[in-house]
């Protein structure tokens, strides 16, 4: 089906830096423009290769073959994964100049690298950089500072574009062997390990800022000299460690999601139900406490002022 590239008597063709950059920008903009279940980023890969194909191949049959070659299923993380495109562009350039690189070689590089780089790339971009910057932006925005979203946007998009351009050019310059060597060197592993430390610290602080769980309930323990005595659950817990309950709640949620594999959607429903039941004015009806519900929205319910009788 595919046209074999003639290997003799062809003029040398080489790509300019502009061609490689043009391809990079086409991918950066349109990698997910036609994201679909059948080929995922397949047509986007082909679009990104159009400046390369236009420069390297003049024979219409070779152009058709190159388009078919790059319209197949493809999916990776678009920024870090650009290293694949760089390596493939380098291979196409060698092929056009008569090197013995067939369709299978190019396909195997694409399909062989897209999985591992999707894993590494998603861990770096969606799993580490994004949540850390989001966490900082969210923290600022919550304090009423509009620099939060602006700072996040500028840093995130700047870092992602820089990372993507770097990986793309690395792929083109090093070629397929260089990319494989880079994956083995362990540098990426160190970056991920360091990002894990930073991510945990920031995430812990975010949990302290956003997760709130206040016990409103003050059970009556008895009456002393005509004054109702209450047991202050929230106050007792807070005296051990401020914020102990939300911390335990986050760890419980993590355990349910990660260890027990509970669906997050189910958990969502359960937590909303807990909140609604917790907000119900049980004790207003039974008048055992001035704090009407199990849970409270903002802060501890003040210990009720002692009232005569019970």
């Amino acid at each position, binding site marked *: 089906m595919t046209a074999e590239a003639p290997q003799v008597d062809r003029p040398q063709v080489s790509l300019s830096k502009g061609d490689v950059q043009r391809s990079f920008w086409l991918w950066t903009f349109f990698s997910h423009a*036609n994201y679909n279940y059948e080929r995922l980023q397949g047509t986007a890969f082909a679009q990104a290769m159009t400046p390369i194909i236009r420069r390297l191949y003049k024979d219409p049959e070779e152009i058709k073959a190159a388009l*078919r070659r790059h319209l197949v299923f493809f999916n990776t993380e678009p920024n870090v994964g650009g290293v694949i495109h760089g390596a493939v562009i380098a291979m196409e350039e060698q092929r056009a100049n008569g090197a013995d690189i067939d369709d299978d070689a190019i396909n195997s590089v694409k399909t062989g690298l897209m999985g591992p780089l999707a894993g590494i790339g*998603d861990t770096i971009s969606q799993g*580490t950089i994004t949540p850390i910057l989001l966490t900082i932006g969210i923290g600022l925005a919550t304090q009423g500072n509009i620099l939060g979203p602006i700072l996040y946007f500028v840093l995130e998009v700047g870092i992602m574009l820089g990372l993507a351009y770097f990986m793309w050019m690395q792929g083109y310059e090093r070629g397929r062997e260089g990319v494989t060597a880079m994956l083995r060197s362990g540098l990426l592993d160190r970056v991920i390990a360091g990002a894990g430390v*930073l991510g945990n*610290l920031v995430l812990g*602080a975010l949990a302290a800022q956003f997760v709130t769980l206040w016990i409103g309930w003050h059970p009556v323990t008895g009456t002393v000299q005509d004054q109702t005595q209450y047991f202050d659950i929230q106050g007792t817990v807070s005296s051990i460690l401020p914020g102990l309950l939300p911390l335990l709640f986050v760890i419980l949620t993590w355990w349910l999601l*990660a260890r027990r594999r509970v669906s997050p959607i189910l958990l969502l429903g359960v937590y909303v139900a807990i909140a609604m039941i917790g907000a119900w004015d049980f004790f207003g009806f039974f008048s055992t406490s001035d704090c009407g519900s199990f849970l409270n*929205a903002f802060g501890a319910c003040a210990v009720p002022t002692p009232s005569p009788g019970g």
Partner: protein
Amino acid sequence: MTRTLSLLRSPKIVAAAISMGIFGALLVAGPVFGADGDSTGVSLFQALLIGLGYYLSNSPWLAGNGGFFGFYRPLVAGFIVGIILGDPVKGAEIGAAINVLYLGFISAGGSIPADPSVAGWVGTALAIGGGLDAQQAVVFGVAVGLVGTVIFFTRMSVDAVFAHWADARAEEGDLRGVAMMNWLPPQIFLFIISVIPATVAVYAGSAVVADWINWLSSNAPWVLKGFQIAGGLLPAIGIAMNMRFIFRGAAIPYFFVGYLLFVYGRTFTPQLNLVAIAIVGVALAFLHVHLLGDRAVQQRGTVR
């Protein structure tokens, strides 16, 4: 200069410039026009802007990354909705609160558990239009975000058709045609299926939400209190989703350090923010990797 002119000949660049230009101009004009209409609620014009912003967040026009990593995030979306509705600070606060739930959001291989962009654009608009505070808005954002996945899955299914159109162009050896099939038809389709529902939801929905909240506050105030309590509980899910990937191995203790640092730091200086924590984090990360060397990377885990 010639390079700039040659760029203008590309229909893609022109389309990107026009869509961003229109949105930018409307963004400035939004609060002005909005103020002319009835003082409460969201005007049709504002709703249309929000629908357009939602489309942009899923489109390629903001250099790809500016969409998925920028406008797609409720923090950014909420801020822009706030600008459109005349209260950027409140928009940013609501967007931030909704975004905590999606801290663990990872889109991998064409599957998403919920749609943060719908939660951010439509959820924030409904919350501001309905007069909810940031904590109450979280429940709304989640609900809208779950419904919004319908648009994503529709798009992922229908777009496969355009891949076959691209195949047909490839058989002609038509480079320009193949490139065009990747962006023009799918983006027209996405524009239609995202702008219309989002605009209608914001325009019609905000009045409904406002009425509903009014009714609740006089008849069942505990429901609103429940929303607030849920706004404190649900972030635990977003944070825990993210912890699945990084709360492991030698990095685990740092989570508790960060938590306590913030709890106690806040009692000393209420101005303490996460920028300071992040700087400490960079220092600790450097020390950790430097001191542990290769042992630091043994608990490596990736998203997939």
